[in-house]
């Protein structure tokens, strides 16, 4: 092991080699929350969905909100990892892995929400046996399974060289690492295969991700219901998804930066760049929200206006204005000038957006249902401990998956950091030179075309 880089990146291997008390405390706490969710689920399974606050006409509530929210978070992986990889943004190197992990983990949680929501989870297999493509739910099933498959492969492939490092360096779990390393030796052929596969996947995963949240939005916009039937729901949901994804990614990065002492890898500059991205997404989100609500308001269609006013000044006003504040006001105030206190501001904005995007999903799902077209009276929805339990359990399960992942695999891509040090530097310099007018050298032999 003559490689000097081995000692340089020891911090990245430390969480895998050693386990402190903090880990057990975290797992314990998360397990308690998961237990709450499990008890809630068992109660619901045993007695029926009646234990929730759902009713006629609000037949969808927290679970569908969670579904849309978690699937939205999964878009962190695509944007950061795929787009930054494709655009050769060098600062991506310590970020991509976490983004990809979030995608995979959260997709499981998101898809699980549908199972929690079903009145008859025992008949889940009916979706597979008797599924029909006329229903947007099947579009979701297809799109999400494509995204899950693609993002698992997209997570795994760039992990192979790191697993090989683990196989060679870590004493534990020899068999697991040996198998998953796929015989990686770092030969030229293997690197060619790997880089080509990563490039293909990075391109492929972007349209799949866009399709996922588009068809999630179609669950609502394909119906005839007021404030659901909207042509911009597809892009609106995708923008919101990327927005919440970046926020969740920043939170995760800051948590692991603190827990594992990764200050050397995740520097203020990374948070500044991500913060700027978050700011752009916040403005974009505001633009879509504005367009969506202004068209409804201007059209002044009575049924749409029932829902509109229910959100604006009716029973849902705290959620609606809460959403506006947490998704737009706070992030913009925090992120518009990022010169000082970068990390604190970015963290505040990200936590705020995480809450805000959940509220946004809620404010899309529930008010429409609670304001039926016919004179039934307004349905008010109060979730019970069961729904809160599922919400807490889902978040905790996501966090637990993530923490366990970091105990098995490096949370920052080691080989990509090394590649940055050893190859990236030169490459950037060369690339930069090609952007500039060539002054020193004589002109290339490129034939000049007369205009």
């Amino acid at each position, binding site marked *: 092991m003559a490689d000097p880089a081995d000692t340089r990146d020891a911090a990245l291997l430390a969480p895998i080699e050693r386990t402190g008390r903090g880990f057990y405390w975290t797992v314990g706490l998360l397990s308690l929350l998961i237990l709450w969710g499990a008890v809630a689920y068992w109660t619901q399974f045993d*007695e*029926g*969905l*009646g234990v929730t*606050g*759902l*009713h*006629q*006409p*609000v*037949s*969808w509530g927290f679970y569908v909100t969670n579904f849309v929210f978690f699937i939205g978070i999964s878009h962190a992986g695509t944007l950061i990892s795929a787009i930054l990889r494709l655009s050769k943004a060098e600062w991506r190197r310590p970020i991509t892995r976490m983004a990809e992990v979030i995608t995979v983990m959260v997709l499981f949680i998101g898809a699980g929400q*549908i199972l929690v*929501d*079903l*009145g*008859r989870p025992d*008949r*889940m297999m*009916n*979706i597979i046996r*008797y*599924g*029909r493509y*006329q*229903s*947007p*739910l*099947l579009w979701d*099933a297809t799109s999400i399974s494509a995204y899950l498959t693609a993002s698992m492969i997209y997570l795994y492939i760039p992990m192979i060289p790191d697993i090989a490092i683990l196989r060679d360096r870590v004493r534990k779990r020899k068999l697991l690492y040996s198998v998953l390393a796929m015989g990686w030796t770092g030969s030229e052929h293997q690197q060619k295969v790997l880089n080509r596969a990563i490039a293909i996947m990075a391109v492929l995963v972007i349209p799949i991700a866009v399709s996922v949240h588009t068809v999630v939005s179609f*669950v609502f916009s*394909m*119906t*005839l*219901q007021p404030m659901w039937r909207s042509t911009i729901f597809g892009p609106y949901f995708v923008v919101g998804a990327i927005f919440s994804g970046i926020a969740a990614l920043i939170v995760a990065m800051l948590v692991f930066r603190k827990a594992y002492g990764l200050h050397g890898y995740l520097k203020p500059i990374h948070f500044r760049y991500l913060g700027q991205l978050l700011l752009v997404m916040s403005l974009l989100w505001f633009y879509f929200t504005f367009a969506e609500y202004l068209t409804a308001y201007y059209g002044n269609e009575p049924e749409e206006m029932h829902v509109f006013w229910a959100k604006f000044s009716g029973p849902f006003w705290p959620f609606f204005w809460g959403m506006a504040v947490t998704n737009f006001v706070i992030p913009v105030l925090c992120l518009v000038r990022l010169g000082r206190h970068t990390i604190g501001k970015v963290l505040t904005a990200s936590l705020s957006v995480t809450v805000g995007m959940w509220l946004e999903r809620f404010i899309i799902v529930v008010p429409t*249902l609670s304001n*039926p*077209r*016919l*004179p*039934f009276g307004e*349905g008010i929805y109060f979730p019970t401990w069961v729904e809160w339990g599922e919400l807490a359990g889902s978040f905790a399960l996501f966090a637990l998956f993530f923490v366990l992942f970091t105990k098995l695999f490096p949370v920052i891509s080691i080989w990509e950091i090394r590649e940055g040090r050893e190859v990236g530097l030169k490459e950037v310099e060369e690339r930069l030179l090609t952007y500039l007018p060539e002054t020193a050298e004589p002109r290339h032999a490129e034939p000049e075309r007369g205009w």
Partner: protein
Amino acid sequence: MARWGMVIDLDRCTGCQACVMACKAENNVPAVGAKEAVRGRIISWMQVLTEEDEEHPGEVKRFLPRPCLQCDDPPCTKVCPVYATYRDPDGIVAQIYARCIGCRFCMAACPYNAKYFNWYRYQKEAPGQNPDVSVRPKGVVEKCTFCHHRLQKARERALAERREVAPGEYVPACAEACPARAIIFGDLSDPGSEVFRLARSPRAFRLLEELGTKPKVIYLTEGEGRG
């Protein structure tokens, strides 16, 4: 092929709820109990909606009995992921309780809120229930079927007697029970039937017609009794 349809004359409706009760008894619709009712879980395939008359606020209430409207282009069947709800060959929107997974997408998609969910297991099979209608388990969606079992029975009887189903032989429980004869049922494609004639009345309208769901329940507006 018959197109079974219903005409509800709002001028005649007194809001007495006889149709609601007849429907509940006929179709084994569970009584959910006071506690569940307060939480908004009443199951009522036929429901009488009330609305304040905008011209005489505080004085006149208007009633709107609402069964499932049996749309010819139903928004609920399109979204069902497992073919548990569909428009059957008689044009009636059916629900297969044994197939339904309880995702409640059809409930969210129905603009008339004509679908109901079994939040708990509200009842078991017991004596006194109508043996022609299955008791729904928990976790599935149920809805008005135009008393489809009555059509099946009428058909079987007609088949045994080697004749066609006669007009008036198949009538849902709500139409049968209405003391004001506000609910008229029959074959919309039979020019001799009363529903055919009433459906073409200048008072006829369909609920949320602009959505293009093509309901087979037709209402006659209040005209004579007002003002």
